[in-house]
């Protein structure tokens, strides 16, 4: 604290400092906490991977490393909003909103066409209600509030159906991701197989060649000619085998 007061160059902070206990999370402390937790779990015959496991007699300097207990009422407040531990979508009734569509039971085999139909119906209702609101406002503005409330209910219902749809969409996305992954893997396998086949053919080609006599003057050119079955022979002054090696080096980089 003294430091802070002395240091007049300290700019006023946009955000407050983190709570002081962050300094307790040193590697040493974390290691000793883990050790304690492990020992404790073994003593009690519990699973030490359980995050909710609590050590009762913890040394004071490690107290902050232990996560706090779950709130007993399974609810907590954050920025004056109440959250609950099991994070479920609140039903419309719980929020005090009239439900317009049919109640969607958790029907595992149910299709979602109905839901789309319901959404379209409500979208049209929203538009119609706006039109009615305009009409009411031009004749009798004091009745406008009711219409606005109707619109409110409609919109909230609309959004609620969308939120109910989220888990479904999440599964759908998972399916999409897995399909993509599968396609990628298959494409990769096919590409590797293709290169391997090519290399095998090249090897067979080499195997069927005669070994050139080692000391003839045309040694260079003849081996080059024969090896040209490997690829296109010499290009840009780089001998074919060198290039082949380079190619494989690239492949290695790509696939491994």
């Amino acid at each position, binding site marked *: 604290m003294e430091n802070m007061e002395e240091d007049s160059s300290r700019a006023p902070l946009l955000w407050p400092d983190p709570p002081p206990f962050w300094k307790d999370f040193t590697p040493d402390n974390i290691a000793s906490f883990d050790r304690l937790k492990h020992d404790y779990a073994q003593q009690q015959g519990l699973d030490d991977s359980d995050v909710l496991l609590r050590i009762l007699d913890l040394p004071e300097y490690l107290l902050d490393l232990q996560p706090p207990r779950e709130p007993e009422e399974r609810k907590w407040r954050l920025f004056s909003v109440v959250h609950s531990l099991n994070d479920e979508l609140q039903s419309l009734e719980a929020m005090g909103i009239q439900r317009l569509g049919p109640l969607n039971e958790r029907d595992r085999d149910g299709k979602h066409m109905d839901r789309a139909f319901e959404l379209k119906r409500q979208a049209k209702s929203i538009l119609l209600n706006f039109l009615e609101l305009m009409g009411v406002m031009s004749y009798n503005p004091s009745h406008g509030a009711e219409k606005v409330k109707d619109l409110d209910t409609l919109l909230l219902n609309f959004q609620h159906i969308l939120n109910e749809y989220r888990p479904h969409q999440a599964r759908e996305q998972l399916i*999409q991701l897995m399909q993509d992954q599968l396609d990628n893997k298959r494409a990769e396998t096919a590409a*590797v197989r293709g290169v391997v086949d090519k290399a095998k053919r090249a090897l067979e080609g080499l195997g069927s060649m005669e070994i050139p006599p080692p000391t003839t003057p045309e040694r260079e050119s003849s081996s080059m000619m024969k090896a040209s079955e490997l690829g296109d022979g010499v290009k840009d002054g780089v001998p074919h085998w060198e290039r082949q090696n380079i190619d494989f080096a690239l492949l290695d980089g790509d696939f491994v």
Partner: protein
Amino acid sequence: MGDRLTQLQDAADQLVHQFIACYYYIERRHELETFGPNDKIHDLKDNPKELDSLPPDVFQAGQLELARDLITKEQQIEYLISSLPGLDNSEHDQEQLIKDLEEELRVAEAQRLDAIKEKDEILVRLDQVLRSIRRN
């Protein structure tokens, strides 16, 4: 650009914003009219400040444009609704699909590893051959 649901929720929000814009337009920009033959429109200088009338034709053109925008947004919403992913899959279908895909992925992964192993082998062989050529 989010997923379909987010797009849809955004579109609904935009629709509401458009509602508000339309409301204000009509409220602020209309012309003064008389209810009966005995009414009089006061001198324009006495116009309340919140009213900023437009000439009737301009006003109507604006109204038309706003109405068109509303319809367009509505159609966009309906289009988004019909393109929600997996409308004809039930939860049960989805689970089955995920399981199938998991199995297929396992097979594909095994094949991929096989292919890579084969590639490494062929690489070694090719390397040997090339070395022997170079030595010759």
